[in-house]
């Protein structure tokens, strides 16, 4: 049976992880490649790298990162952050990345999704959506959550699927960083609306939250950062817990 996926997310700037990482007995906390390899050993199913480098050397740092990760890590990985042109995508895939994640670039230029799907297949294209609930309405935000587009989350997710996206990575801005659980209600609705896998992001604080996101939110995968980076949740223990709750994991 297809397993539910657990995905640690690493923020990377100029080739180094940005947010502090605080593993006990782990020396290479700043190196995203060593960190990804460590997560892979602990049973992570995929890794997402979010690059927030601002320089114009960006494409080079991104492909260098992909190449180093592909050399060391034996599970699939996604690179996001500043993927704007088809050439970025082909360079990343050639360097061993499995998927690219689009956020602002997809909202600003929806046809980019279609171009990627046509050239490399839908499975390559993850459409990341940052959304926030205001008075019962979920709208999509641009530029790392700074600009409200007014666009409805569910409408945009369906559009992205029709344009050729292979997965939706939905981050709830209301839940992100609060550690009180994922946006299960919105996730369940999203799962009804789209027919591509949904990755839940934002809100992980305990093992129970992961159980809930799969059982109540019907997510296909759950992504988290700090609970893994600070050793609050160990991925192999999390998987044992989920298995004990009859959730299929690898």
């Amino acid at each position: 049976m297809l397993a539910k996926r657990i995905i640690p997310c690493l923020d990377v700037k100029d080739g180094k992880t940005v947010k502090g990482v605080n593993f006990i007995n782990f020396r290479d906390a700043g190196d995203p490649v060593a960190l990804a390899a460590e997560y892979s050993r602990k049973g992570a199913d995929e890794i997402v790298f979010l690059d927030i480098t601002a320089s114009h050397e960006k494409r080079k740092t991104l492909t260098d990162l992909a190449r180093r990760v592909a050399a060391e890590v034996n599970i699939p990985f996604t690179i996001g952050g500043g993927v704007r042109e088809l050439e970025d995508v082909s360079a990343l895939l050639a360097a061993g990345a499995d998927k690219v994640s689009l956020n602002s670039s997809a909202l600003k230029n929806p046809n980019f999704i279609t171009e990627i799907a046509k050239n490399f297949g839908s499975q390559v294209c993850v459409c990341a959506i940052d959304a926030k609930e205001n008075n019962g309405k979920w709208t999509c935000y641009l530029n790392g959550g700074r600009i409200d587009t007014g666009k409805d989350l569910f409408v945009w997710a369906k559009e992205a699927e029709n344009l050729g996206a292979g997965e939706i990575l939905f981050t709830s801005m209301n839940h992100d960083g609060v550690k009180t659980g994922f946006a299960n209600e919105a996730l369940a609705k999203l799962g009804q609306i789209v027919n591509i896998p949904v990755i839940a992001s934002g809100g992980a604080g305990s093992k129970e939250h992961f159980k809930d996101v799969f059982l109540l939110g019907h997510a296909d995968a759950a992504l988290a950062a700090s609970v893994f980076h600070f050793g609050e949740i160990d991925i192999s223990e999390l998987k044992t817990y989920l298995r004990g709750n009859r959730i299929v994991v690898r």
Partner: protein
Amino acid sequence: MKVVIIKYNAGNIFSVTSALKRIGVEAVITDDKNIISSADKVIFPGVGEAGTTMRYLKAKNLDFFIKNLKQPVLGICLGMQLMCKKSEEGNVECLGIFDEDVQKFPAGSLKIPHMGWNNITKVKEPLFNKTLENEYVYFVHSYYVSLGTDTIASAEYILPFSAALNKNNFYATQFHPEKSGDAGERILKNFIYL
């Protein structure tokens, strides 16, 4: 041991090379037929669309060439589908090494593509061994091959299908061993040391 990866317009060659390196094998990437013919093991990777890729192989006269290779050959993902008789993707005649057709997963309650980690069962030697029974491996595909006489591993998504095939010197996996963690590396090792 000389291992060759057939160079053509497939996307995952760097990942395959890296996985082989991790198990201590330096592979050569080439489309030179003399080098391929003289290799001990040949890997035929694949990510992409069947119709376009078959046309490319024909244009390069690689279609008959691959079919007539005598050493162990491992097809991966689209590589496996291209080794079958016919694919519904692009409605194209394929290499015909395996006597099976490639069909699209029927639309229904489950999402397509089949993407993620799924377990393989009824695995057969020599590509697999008992420790690989029920192991999770990484799949990404929208088309599948039914269970048949050449099936050497099964998986289930929407319906039961072939996770791996073997006929004579030809081996193939629908999943990506190069992205399937330790289990995938064990399978690659089994192929290399056939």
